[in-house]
């Protein structure tokens, strides 16, 4: 049934239930991004501040540790150990170069034949550490001289020695009984090496331990030096 319109000439629309206008929800991406960026920046600044604080604390800790290590280092101990190491190295170096002249003389005794003799001997150590040996040998005749030369050459120390200044003399004694004598002189020279006539020491029992210790210290100090130089 239709309602009465009353007196108004304006037609009235039928009554409808009032409904709220449907709102449109706008998403502002730029605004959102700006807020995210801003708060992200604030958060990053806070993290950076905290991390920086932590890193500084770590640096202070490392500095403190280094100071402790430095304080515990004893310079006097180091100098004493280094001096000992250096002294031992020098001593070993001298020992390594030490030769035995008595072994050389014993070899010459063994290798000199009865009919010849050494009337002059010169031995000197060169600036380069070489050992120069010169022997003046005299024999009664050339056969003896040849035999003597072979004897010298048969020994490892004098093998390859140079024979020079060979001199033959003949003399006759004056008097009722005339005696003829003849001499063959020659010079034997050779440059020897330390290893040809090394000086060797018979180790006493009980001394091996300390020698092992010495070797340990020499190698250890060597490695410390290397590390320091690095």
């Amino acid at each position, binding site marked *: 049934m239709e309602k009465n319109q009353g007196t108004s000439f304006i037609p009235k629309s039928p009554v409808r239930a009032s409904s709220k206008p449907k709102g449109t929800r706008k998403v*502002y991406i*730029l*605004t959102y991004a*700006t*807020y995210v*960026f*801003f708060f992200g*920046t604030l958060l*990053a*600044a806070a993290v950076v*501040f905290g*991390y*920086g604080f932590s*890193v*500084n604390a770590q*640096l202070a800790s*490392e500095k403190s*540790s*280094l100071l402790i*290590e*430095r304080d515990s*280092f004893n310079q006097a*101990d*180091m100098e004493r150990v280094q*001096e*000992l190491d*250096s*002294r031992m*190295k*020098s*001593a070993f*170096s*001298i020992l390594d170069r*030490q030769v035995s*002249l*008595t072994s050389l*003389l014993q070899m010459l005794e063994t290798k000199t034949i009865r009919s010849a*003799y*050494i*009337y*002059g*001997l*010169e*031995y*000197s*150590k060169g*600036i*380069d*550490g070489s050992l120069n040996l010169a022997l003046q040998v005299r024999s009664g005749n050339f056969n003896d001289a040849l035999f003597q030369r072979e004897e010298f050459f048969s020994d490892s120390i004098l093998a390859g020695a140079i024979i020079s200044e060979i001199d033959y003399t003949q003399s006759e004694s004056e008097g009722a009984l005339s005696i003829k004598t003849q001499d063959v002189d020659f010079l034997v020279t050779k440059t020897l090496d330390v290893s040809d006539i090394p*000086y060797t020491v018979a180790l006493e029992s009980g001394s091996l331990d*300390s020698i092992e*210790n*010495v070797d340990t*210290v020499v190698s*250890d*100090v060597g*490695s*410390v030096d290397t*590390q*320091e130089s690095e």
Partner: protein
Amino acid sequence: MGYKSIIQIVLFITSIVIIVAYVQPSLLTIKETQDEIFVYSDAVEKASELNIKLSSLTADEQSFKSTDMAALLAYLPSSIDVMAVMADITSIAKANDATITALGSGELELPNEDAVFDGKVIVSDSTPHRDIDLSVSATYESFKTMLRSFEKNKYPLEVVSFTLGESSKQEGDIVTSADDATGKYELVLRTYSYSDVNNQ
């Protein structure tokens, strides 16, 4: 331009300012600090290793027998007492029936630098030494035992030069063997001392 837009612009600019003025420099500072930490950490590690090694070496040094240390100091003393060395040589000669005809000391020679001689590089032994000239008159056997005593001495008496001179045996002298003939021997002995200057 609305209110919201102004706020956005202000926030954006503030963020940029924070990044440029604080975050970025702070990150650079942190990186530098981290590098510094690495250097310090490395130094601490090396210092620690050095201290441990030094402790170990000091312990080794302490483990040496005092007699061995005394022997080392006697073998390579810090300085050469020439008069004591010459006295020792005299005693050794006397103990071996050798007669000293001359004994003289040379100057102390300091170690030279490495040199080139005859095409070869000669490495310096870095040890100061002193030469002593010795002339003795002795039988061959006595001379040999004297040499043996020099070799066994508690400090080096290195023979750097040795000349066997003429024998004093004259025609008509009666000697039982060649070993009994008295000969003249010229020697140059070298003794060493320790110097830390050239041993580093």
